[in-house]
């Protein structure tokens, strides 16, 4: 099979090829390594490529497949992970000079589970430094959007999305504390899922703000994301906060179609002054398509969602700052200017103000739960805009500019569901006139990731956005 053919096959399709012995894992991995070698210098998607280790792993997978013993539908399928997830014997930088020499002695649980399922680790993916805001001069290269390399990938799971969009890998893992899986998924035109907090073990995910942190899968299709989530979800003795709720059959849910599903469009996000009208139009068109696929669409109101950034900034960011306080004291010069300034500011937020915010967090959770009593899934744009140009941000000249441009930033539409811990997914729903992807965000009741996957898969069955690929 030609390399370009392999590059954009889904994980489901690659798994079928492998089980029918129409391609070997070694062939697939070799083709993708060649593509990474060719494209990564421009795109900056990978920090570390596993090369020979990936080929060795693929050969082991081929031997198991030859014995007719696939461990999962992903056996022999390559994957790559954000460089915030531990990988045994492979450097894990967290996108920062602070961890340039950190080599974990074990895998993160999510990584270990993908490997145990027969997945082949291709490498470690680029990210914004410490997963905390923009990075002016990324220490391991600037991640660039495959749809337009002058544009941002979004972050912080930058390479996790761009590697998929560029056909460098079929499945990736990311981490999401305020939108870090969904935003790059939206900007790069792929599917990204932030699970319910507790659904996927955080063991080995380098912590940012633990009450908000989630590891989750990305893929080019909802079906692929379903397969990956199936493998990584579930109780982990190494993470006491992981849930022991049963893991449903996500791939089956993703085949059920949208008929009879109730989708509630979040009025406050659709009416936001910050929402680009071109993004709004594409989201409305996507909702129309879901209606034609059998879903009932209505509008719901979550008034407190407009305070979500305040809740997020007051509760998550000081925790991040506390975690990195020793770095700020001892190695501030080794942190890029943008995360350093964000950490410094977050270090000075008074605890008394943070404590006053907690009731508001509970109230927002209650409102989202309330909305989800009348519908199955909530819908909204993933981000207010498509990918923006990579540019040095201008010096701040006002507090309002600081709030929108540097503090609350692009996570305004995603951080509410980190605050409330609901599962949320971004699925591509079209392109702007400039050829930039736009994402539709779907939110479900806690531990009902299957419902976001069901709607996303039904939408992808009715559209072909996910079959369009950048010209690279």
């Amino acid at each position, binding site marked *: 099979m030609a390399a370009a053919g392999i590059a954009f096959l889904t994980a489901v399709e690659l798994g079928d090829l492998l089980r029918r012995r129409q391609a070997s894992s070694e062939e697939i991995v070799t083709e993708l390594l060649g593509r990474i070698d060719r494209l990564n210098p421009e795109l900056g998607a990978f920090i570390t490529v596993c090369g020979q280790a990936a080929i060795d792993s693929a050969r082991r997978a081929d031997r198991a497949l030859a014995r007719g013993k696939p461990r999962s539908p992903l056996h022999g399928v390559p994957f790559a992970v954000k460089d915030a997830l531990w990988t045994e014997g492979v450097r894990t930088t967290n996108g920062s000079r602070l961890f340039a020499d950190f080599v974990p002695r074990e895998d993160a649980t999510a990584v270990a589970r993908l490997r145990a399922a027969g997945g082949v680790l291709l490498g470690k993916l680029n990210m914004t430094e410490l997963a905390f805001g923009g990075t002016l001069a990324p220490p391991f290269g600037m991640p660039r959007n495959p749809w337009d390399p002058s544009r941002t990938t979004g972050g912080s799971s930058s390479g996790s999305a761009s590697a998929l969009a560029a056909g460098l890998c079929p499945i990736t893992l990311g981490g999401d504390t305020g939108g870090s899986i969904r935003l790059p998924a939206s900007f790069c035109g792929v599917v990204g899922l932030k699970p319910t*907090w*507790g659904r996927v073990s955080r063991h080995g995910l380098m912590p940012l703000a633990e009450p908000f942190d989630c590891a989750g899968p990305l893929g080019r299709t909802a079906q692929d994301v379903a397969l990956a989530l199936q493998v990584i979800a579930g109780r982990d003795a190494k993470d006491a906060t992981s849930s022991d709720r049963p893991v449903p059959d996500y791939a089956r849910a993703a085949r059920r179609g949208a008929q009879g599903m109730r989708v509630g*469009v979040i*009025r*406050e996000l*659709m*009416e936001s002054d910050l929402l680009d009208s071109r993004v709004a139009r594409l989201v*409305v068109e996507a*909702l129309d398509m879901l209606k034609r696929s059998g879903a009932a*669409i*209505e*509008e*719901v*109101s979550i*008034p*407190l969602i407009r*305070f979500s*950034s*305040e809740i997020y*900034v007051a509760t998550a960011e000081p925790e991040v700052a506390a975690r990195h*306080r020793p770095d700020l*004291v001892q190695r*501030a010069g080794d942190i890029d*200017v943008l995360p*350093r*300034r*964000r950490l*410094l*500011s*977050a*270090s*000075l*937020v008074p605890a008394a103000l943070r*404590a*006053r*915010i*907690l*009731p*508001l967090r*509970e*109230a927002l*959770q*209650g*409102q989202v*739960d*309330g909305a989800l*009593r*009348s519908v199955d899934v909530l819908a909204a744009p993933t981000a207010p805009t498509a990918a923006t140009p990579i540019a040095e941000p201008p*010096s*701040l000249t*006002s*507090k309002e*500019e*600081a*709030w929108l441009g*540097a*503090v609350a930033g692009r996570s305004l539409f995603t951080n509410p569901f980190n605050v*409330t*811990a609901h599962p949320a997914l971004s699925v591509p729903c079209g392109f702007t006139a400039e050829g930039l992807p736009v994402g539709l965000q779907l939110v479900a009741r*806690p531990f009902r990731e299957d419902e976001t996957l069901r709607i996303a898969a039904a939408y992808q069955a009715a559209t072909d956005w996910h079959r369009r690929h950048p010209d690279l």
Partner: protein
Amino acid sequence: MGDLRPEHVKALALAVGLTIADDDLTDVTFRLGATLDRLGALDALDLLRVGGAAGAGRGDEVGRRPGRAAPRADRRAAAARRDRGAATGLPRRGAASGAPARSGPRGKR
């Protein structure tokens, strides 16, 4: 909240053992000022009525509790937005308390 000045921020940082370089000071001052303004503005909300008593036990493993009412100020703001008309032209259901509503957001009164 009053205007925060760079010298205040520098002194505050020093008090907690952090040094802010001159190149970072203006930026950090604007960021912190914006954050404090936003959080201070929430004092206008009756937060104890919004979410029940602070420190109340969590409902389950993801820390959620049943739907609660929006604060009065927020209900007023929601009503104002409702009057502006919807962006989507879709049927509406109020969700402030989880109860269906035909004409916009509705919370427990």
